[in-house]
């Protein structure tokens, strides 16, 4: 009897630890390694940096469904001359030399099974700040997913702003 209780307790504790570990992993922001360690803070917020606006690179955010990631010719526009001694910029130059685009890893996306048809354009037009949905990207050294885009989260904002919460707005 005593032994049974001991095993029961051990298994119970093991399960609790496993659940806690899984929960901790799930609540950690997603920050995948990128082919080039691009630094948002350096480009946007650094006092003596270029202080770019989001739409300098993500130039279709106000024009189409997708915000888009720039072609590396945009990067090379500056980095042909700027910081050519940095190893990451040298990686970039090598890509440009090979006429190849880095395979950036998406940080924000909807699960295809969610059948969500999101468009950036109406949100930008409605003056929603990029940081409202993407977190404080201007301060990030490494891009990570800080905001969880759940349906409840979308609906809450739509309710507050009194815009349609009809299913067909997003799902079709």
């Amino acid at each position, binding site marked *: 009897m005593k032994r049974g209780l001991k095993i029961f307790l051990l298994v119970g504790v093991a399960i609790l630890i496993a659940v806690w570990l899984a929960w901790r992993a799930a609540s950690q922001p997603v920050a995948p390694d990128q082919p080039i360690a691009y630094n948002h803070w350096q480009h946007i917020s650094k006092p003596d940096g270029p202080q770019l606006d989001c739409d300098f690179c993500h130039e279709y955010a106000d024009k189409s469904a997708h915000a888009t990631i720039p072609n590396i010719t945009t990067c090379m526009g500056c980095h042909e001359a700027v910081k050519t001694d940095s190893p990451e910029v040298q990686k970039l130059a090598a890509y440009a030399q090979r006429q190849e685009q880095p395979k950036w890893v998406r940080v924000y996306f909807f699960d295809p*099974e*969610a*059948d969500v*048809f999101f*468009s950036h*354009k*109406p949100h930008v037009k409605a003056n929603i700040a990029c940081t409202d949905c993407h977190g404080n990207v201007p301060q990030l050294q490494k891009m990570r997913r800080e905001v969880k885009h759940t349906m409840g989260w979308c609906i809450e904002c739509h309710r507050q702003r009194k815009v*349609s919460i*009809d*299913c*067909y*707005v997003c*799902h*079709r």
Partner: protein
Amino acid sequence: MSETTPTNKPQWAMVIDLDRCTGCEACVVACNVENNVATVGAEEAAKGRTINWIRIERYFEGEYPDVRVKFRPVMCQHCEEAPCEPVCPVYATYHTDEGLNAQVYNRCVGTRYCANNCPYTVRSFNFFDHVWDAPLQKAWNPEVSVRSRGVMEKCTFCVQRIKAGEAKAKDENRDVKDGDVTPACVQTCPTKAMYFGNIADPTSEVAKLSKSSRATKLLEDLGTKPKVIYLNEGE
């Protein structure tokens, strides 16, 4: 089946002139391509598991050799009092404020009550996950979900095109007008038998045609108030 609330939103409707339809089924093909509608193959079709958002019904009148064939394209009638809506236990099918009978795929649990309750039998069920023979999956419309096994589907009046048309009108700071939204079937019909538009706007073509003396609705006496209006053949 909620009471229709007054709204300033467009009310989408279709008019089909049966005098013009030749039964060519171009609309059926256009619909399949636009909306990623799967073809199930002969074996499953024999079991009645085909998926069709629009079909052409044929009626033969008279005795050989004096036969006349009549054609009637039938799709979801987007009834204002839709019998499919109140029977869905999870609200996967409901009425939008633009007069559309909507189907939310990821809410559907596949009870098939709605299809049983549809007097027009326009709802199709996905009995399995469909396979598109390569390279046909590359022709999927990215604006439309690819439905998976266990969900119901049916004509949406090409809601992706409706949303695009509305977005364009909003960009230009005006109300939607005729020509902003053209569903795939309407666009394709070679004899221009179909019209689509906002029936709440009295100047729209569908609103005018719906007042024709030839205008009828399918199984109108059921009280479903369909949003598809057929113009009967003239004499």
